């Protein structure tokens, strides 16, 4: 039997067995109050100033090292940098040095505690917890004051990292290849540690009570499936978890090994599996994970992160290079899918009470024809490569589609007149993501070469919920009968008109949903590259007959609970391993 079992919230799957490394910046720097003479006040203030500036230098160095794909972390570090630059923070501590005639460490502590008091009044739990950001910044200053900044960067062997909290800066400084798992005291599902662990694919648990009782070098098992830390495990536990770890690793390596095989069912039905990407740099992940092309290239990134607009030449080169790297596989480029709220700076002030229902995607492009035509020219010019398709987002109905097509054809005519090379047979498709488009899918299908169903928005608009609103997010139910019927309707309408139908929402990466999509005989799915190997594996183990049978039964469900139950039953019986090692959008 273990000496102790600690419990927390699992945020990244997997098992780690090994010794702990306890990272605590405050550990050797316990703060004590020291009274100082009036004459020492300037000296103490200097120490404080110096510590702030060293901490700032440190953080700016770390900021430069952050890769582009960790945008979220960069934003948080930016806010920490702003805090360090904020004279008020430093002055608040400085004032305490002068007023109370105390050492810089204690003054800093008092300044932080004032802020904590202000935060503790907040009802909203999430924002109350953001005091963490102030604390993390104060920790950096404190360790500079002590002249011995914590250096978590050097481990000699792979460790299980324990910490009160992990800031984004910590995780970037750490030698991540030496860490086999994380556990932290603070945090919930949205904490930085969880996001990073999942992207690194190492197990992690947050919100672990009693973690501070552990020491360096203790032997533990970290169970990232169930959120447990087993301290000094007994032989039976060790044997059980060693076996589970082995099974999981075996499973993962097998999944990855076979990811290049086609997604074909036992009875010979093939579905194509493409990748959704946003950044050029993700192409490598598409190929490595067995993606058969890019089913959705989000073009928004080049329009954000800057004060001016990209030029046609920049966009053309971006699309051309991407198409040539992925050649001969296909590249589906979606035209700008942004809301007016996102690139407001170039287009004057926007007042929209409901941006999700406002001037966005194709509507925004039609409002700004100059911008839209510039992107169309860039895509058309790049299409000369021969493997590009174009796709328009958020089409609501026939009239809108015909007007967009008119713009598209006028750009084609201009290019033709100018003797500019392009692919005259480039496939043109639309995203079906509005309930109105679903209902007239039969008409729309006659006007385009393919459909791609965007389930994230389709669910949001069909069920009338803003999925980022935590008060209603429980209604985000992919297996709601209305959603399943909508998808089925679009697939059937597309096939009736002889066009291919794809699906590119999160549903495509959900092992619980994919058998149903196959039952509908969808032609292809497009998902994040990391999820491709697992989904292909499920397809390869299924038969079309059972998928059709499941679909039939699920379509007869009267409510979402029944659909969920049916799907869970099937997955339980047929893919027990998937159930063990996967997470799903489908609630229990």
């Amino acid at each position, binding site marked *: 039997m273990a000496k102790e079992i600690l419990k927390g919230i699992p945020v990244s799957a997997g098992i780690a067995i090994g010794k702990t490394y306890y990272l605590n910046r405050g550990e050797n720097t316990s703060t004590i109050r020291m009274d100082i003479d009036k004459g020492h006040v300037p000296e103490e203030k200097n120490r404080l100033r110096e510590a702030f500036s060293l901490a700032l230098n440190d953080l700016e160095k770390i900021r430069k090292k952050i890769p582009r794909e960790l945008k979220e972390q960069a934003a948080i570090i*930016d806010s920490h940098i702003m805090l360090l630059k904020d004279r008020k923070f430093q002055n*608040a501590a400085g004032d305490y040095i002068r007023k109370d005639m105390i050492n810089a460490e204690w003054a800093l502590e008092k300044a932080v505690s004032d802020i904590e008091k*202000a935060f503790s009044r907040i009802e909203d739990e999430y924002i*109350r917890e953001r005091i963490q950001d102030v604390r993390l910044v104060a920790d950096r200053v404190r360790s500079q004051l002590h002249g011995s900044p914590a250096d978590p960067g050097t481990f000699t062997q792979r460790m299980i990292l324990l910490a009160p909290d992990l800031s984004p800066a910590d995780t970037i400084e750490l030698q991540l290849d030496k860490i086999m798992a994380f556990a932290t005291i603070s945090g919930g599902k949205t904490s930085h540690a969880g996001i990073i662990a999942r992207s690194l694919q190492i197990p992690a648990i947050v919100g672990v009570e009693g973690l501070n009782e552990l020491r360096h070098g203790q032997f533990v098992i970290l169970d990232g499936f169930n959120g447990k830390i087993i301290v000094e495990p007994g032989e039976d536990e060790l044997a059980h978890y060693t076996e589970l770890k082995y099974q999981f690793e075996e499973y993962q390596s097998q999944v990855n090994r076979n990811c290049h095989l086609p997604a074909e069912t036992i009875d010979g039905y093939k579905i194509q599996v493409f990748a959704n990407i946003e950044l050029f740099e993700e192409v490598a992940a598409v190929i490595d994970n067995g993606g058969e092309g890019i089913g959705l290239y989000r073009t928004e990134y080049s329009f954000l992160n800057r004060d001016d607009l990209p030029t046609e030449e920049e966009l053309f080169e971006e699309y051309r290079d991407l198409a040539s790297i992925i050649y001969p596989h296909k590249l589906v480029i979606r035209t700008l899918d942004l809301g007016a709220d996102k690139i407001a*700076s170039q287009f004057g002030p926007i007042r929209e009470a409901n941006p999700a229902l406002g001037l966005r995607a194709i509507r925004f492009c039609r409002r700004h024809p100059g911008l839209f035509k510039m992107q169309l020219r860039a895509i058309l010019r790049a299409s000369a490569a021969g493997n590009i398709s174009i796709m328009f987002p958020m089409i609501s109905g026939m009239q809108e589609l015909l007007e967009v097509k008119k713009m598209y054809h006028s750009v084609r005519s201009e290019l033709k007149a100018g003797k500019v090379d392009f692919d005259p047979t480039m496939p043109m498709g639309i995203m079906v993501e509005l309930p109105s488009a679903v209902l007239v899918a039969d008409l729309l299908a006659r006007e385009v070469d393919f459909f791609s169903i965007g389930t994230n928005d389709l669910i949001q608009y069909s069920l009338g919920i803003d999925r*980022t609103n935590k008060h209603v997010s429980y209604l985000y139910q992919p297996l709601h009968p209305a959603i399943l019927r909508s998808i089925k309707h679009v697939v059937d309408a597309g096939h009736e008109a002889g066009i291919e139908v794809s699906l590119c929402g999160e549903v495509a990466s959900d092992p619980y949903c994919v058998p149903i999509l196959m039952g509908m005989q969808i032609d292809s799915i497009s998902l994040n590259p990391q999820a491709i190997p697992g989904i292909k594996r499920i397809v390869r183990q299924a038969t079309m007959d059972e998928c059709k049978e499941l679909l039939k039964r699920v379509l007869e469900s009267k409510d979402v609970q029944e659909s969920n139950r049916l799907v869970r039953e099937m997955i339980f019986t047929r893919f027990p391993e998937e159930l063990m090692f996967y997470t799903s959008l489908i609630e229990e």
Partner: protein
Amino acid sequence: MDENNQEILVSLDSEFGLHARPAALLAREAQKFSSDIWLGFDGREVDAKSILDILTLAAPNGSTLRILARGSDAQDAVRHIRRLIMGRFEEKG
């Protein structure tokens, strides 16, 4: 109200309220203007150029914020800050 003395109300639509990231974006935006700018909520007013001040305001989602600016570019300042808030701080970077 003259041009150099502006005051508007805007409602905060940021899922988790004014936490570190939006506060940083807001302070950075305010720092671009020479006017003095304050942010008011719940009967208090703080310096909109200080991230720490903004954080101590601790405004949750749905709050009504008051933006006040005094100076030669006050009109531009309130306009830009309002746009940032109304755009749900989605200015990436």
